[in-house]
């Protein structure tokens, strides 16, 4: 199994960067020729291209109600950020499942199938029920025609896409959460389950539970870890670093260890997002890949 790396763009982080409305109106000595058409989206593109340039496999876009919408950001950067799988995070409350499926199909058609869905929510009972039905209906209209459904949140009659809309794959679905309910839900619904970073033994335990639940559901669910990362050239520069923290070598070894216990997807973030994407992409990811190759050769 390969290890896939995703960078995570947070539209609410570093809010002044590239933000036209945050430019100083007074007291700025240089002649400022920036027009309003240079804006925050140019920064999003820079982050995405940083991830693409440094051989990340994908880009998550965080759902932040106070800032730019994750799905709008993902589409706006798609044509200038090559190769990356683009994975907006959003809750199942954004609207109709049929409409979401139709938007996904258009995105897939336009981007050579580079969309993923990371469904988020408050994890409560209603949210869980809605998310499950949302995915059932979205996959239903995507894969079945005619599709009928009469449920708690959505109802459809004679649904389903025709060619050419029916010709693209449904986006891979990423769900997350740390408790048994979340794992059970992912066993039924997710393609990838994302766990928050934790000590190796704890992650191993969760991985075993997920495998068992998925097996019972007759499915295969891949495992991922989502974490902030702090990596520096030397260990002494990592003072109280967050998340996966340490020297480039130590962090790389840690990520290779995750892979060894069955983690296939790692979603990483750090601030500032552009510079850290370059740093991780240039100095850490090659070390992880080399380390995995070494371990494989040794085995």
């Amino acid at each position, binding site marked *: 199994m390969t290890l896939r790396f995703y960078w995570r763009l947070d539209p609410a982080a570093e*809010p002044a960067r590239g*933000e036209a*409305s945050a430019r100083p109106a007074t007291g700025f000595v240089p002649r400022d020729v920036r027009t*309003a*058409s240079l*804006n*925050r*989206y140019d920064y999003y*593109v820079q982050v995405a291209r940083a991830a693409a340039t440094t051989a990340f496999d994908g880009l998550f876009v965080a759902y932040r*109600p*106070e*800032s*730019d*919408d994750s*799905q*709008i*950001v993902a*589409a*706006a950067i*798609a*044509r*200038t950020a090559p190769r990356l799988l683009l994975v907006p995070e959003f809750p199942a*409350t*954004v*609207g*109709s*499942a*049929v*409409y979401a499926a*139709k*938007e996904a*199909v*258009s*995105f897939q*058609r*336009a*981007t*050579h199938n580079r969309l993923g869905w990371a469904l988020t929510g408050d994890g409560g009972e209603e949210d869980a029920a809605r998310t499950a039905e949302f995915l059932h*209906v979205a996959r239903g209209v995507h894969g079945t025609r005619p599709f009928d*459904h009469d449920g708690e949140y*959505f*109802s*459809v*009659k*004679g*649904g389903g*896409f*025709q*060619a*050419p*809309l029916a*010709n693209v794959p449904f986006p891979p679905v990423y769900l997350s959460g740390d408790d048994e309910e979340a794992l059970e839900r992912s066993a039924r619904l997710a393609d990838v389950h994302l766990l928050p970073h934790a000590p190796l033994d704890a992650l191993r335990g969760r991985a075993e539970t997920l495998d068992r639940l998925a097996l019972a559901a007759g499915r295969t669910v891949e495992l991922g870890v989502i974490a902030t990362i702090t990596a520096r050239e030397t260990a002494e520069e990592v003072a109280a670093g967050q998340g996966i923290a340490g020297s480039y070598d130590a962090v790389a070894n840690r990520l290779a260890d995750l892979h060894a216990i069955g983690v296939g997807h790692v979603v990483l973030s750090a601030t500032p997002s552009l510079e850290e994407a370059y740093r991780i992409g240039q100095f850490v990811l090659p070390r992880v890949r080399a380390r995995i190759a070494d371990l494989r050769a040794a085995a």
Partner: protein
Amino acid sequence: MSIDFYWRLPTHGCHASIRRGSYDRGDWSPLQPGNVAPGLTAQGEDDGYRYIDHLAEIAKAAELSGFIGGLIPSFPNTDDPWVISPLLARETKTFRFMIAFQPGFLDPVHAARISASLQRATGGRTVFNVITGGGGPSQLWWGDDFAHDDRYGRTTEFLDIFRGVWAGKPFDYDGRFYQVEGEQLSDLLSREEVPEIWFSGSSEAALQSAAKHADYYLSWLEPYDQLTDKFARVKERTAQLGGEQKCAIRVDLVARPTEEEAWRDIRIGFENVSDATRAQWRGQPTDSVGAARQSALKPTEAKRWDDLIVGKNLWGGFNLLRGGPALGIVGSYEQCAEQLDELIQRGADAFILAGTPHLEEAWRIGEEVLPLLGRTAATTQNLLEAAE
């Protein structure tokens, strides 16, 4: 005063010629030699272009040739305007994305958020064509089982909330269809302009909703006296209800250097329509009043192309040649401009034009027809009076 001219992005494929109905642009027909987006390489393999690449060219042609933007239609078998618009935001400069959408498909607070985000991505180039009355079996396809008048009630509430959360303070709403409590857009998002709202629908329920929320009332082209009456009725009724409507027309043109050439394309196009298609030429089952008004124009059977000439430079068989409204304008560049001038005199404040193929015709109409507008004395007088 000036008139806003929009073009249209064909979101369900396009034809290389009005003379033939084959969808040879886009993948609504099988990949074969001669198709584009996707097309085939010299080695006969998929060339990697996708239909969005062609739509990008149409949008850029429209903005370069003088259109303010374009309508992006939404039907079950189209690509989606909420995806197309952000995808093309960064490679267009002035093109306004007129997004067709039905309020029932999105949560209103979420819709406000994504709209503000798209305004930020485009520098304020988002426009809405709010669709409510489509109805019929296709509503159930979308997962929407509301009855006709209920849908307009829901549209009104949707737009109440859409604007309400945009006002920069916590917003409460207790409606029949939606309830929200303390919702608002962040300062970052609410700073953006609320998108201009274009509205369709001919029923009383539609007009009540339009009076409250619409900037433009959009109609397909209808026989001119009928359309003049309709615009007058809309403006009067919405004024009674406290609104102010500008009126807009969506119409296809076949504009050629001479009238003869224009009708020749229509004739050849008509002759290439199969007998089966002509026999099936009927309106779809729908509870849309607008669609019913159009289907009333149709003869029961299309036998001869010139049976469908319903007025000077007006042809009623466009939906034999491509999907969409039946009535369109056919003529020389001068005649097409005269028809548009006439419609401006009769109350049109804006247009959504289209022609097949959409890329080349955006250039043709932008270069050859739009510059001729306003030359007839009456229109010039009309515009001058409106400016005073």
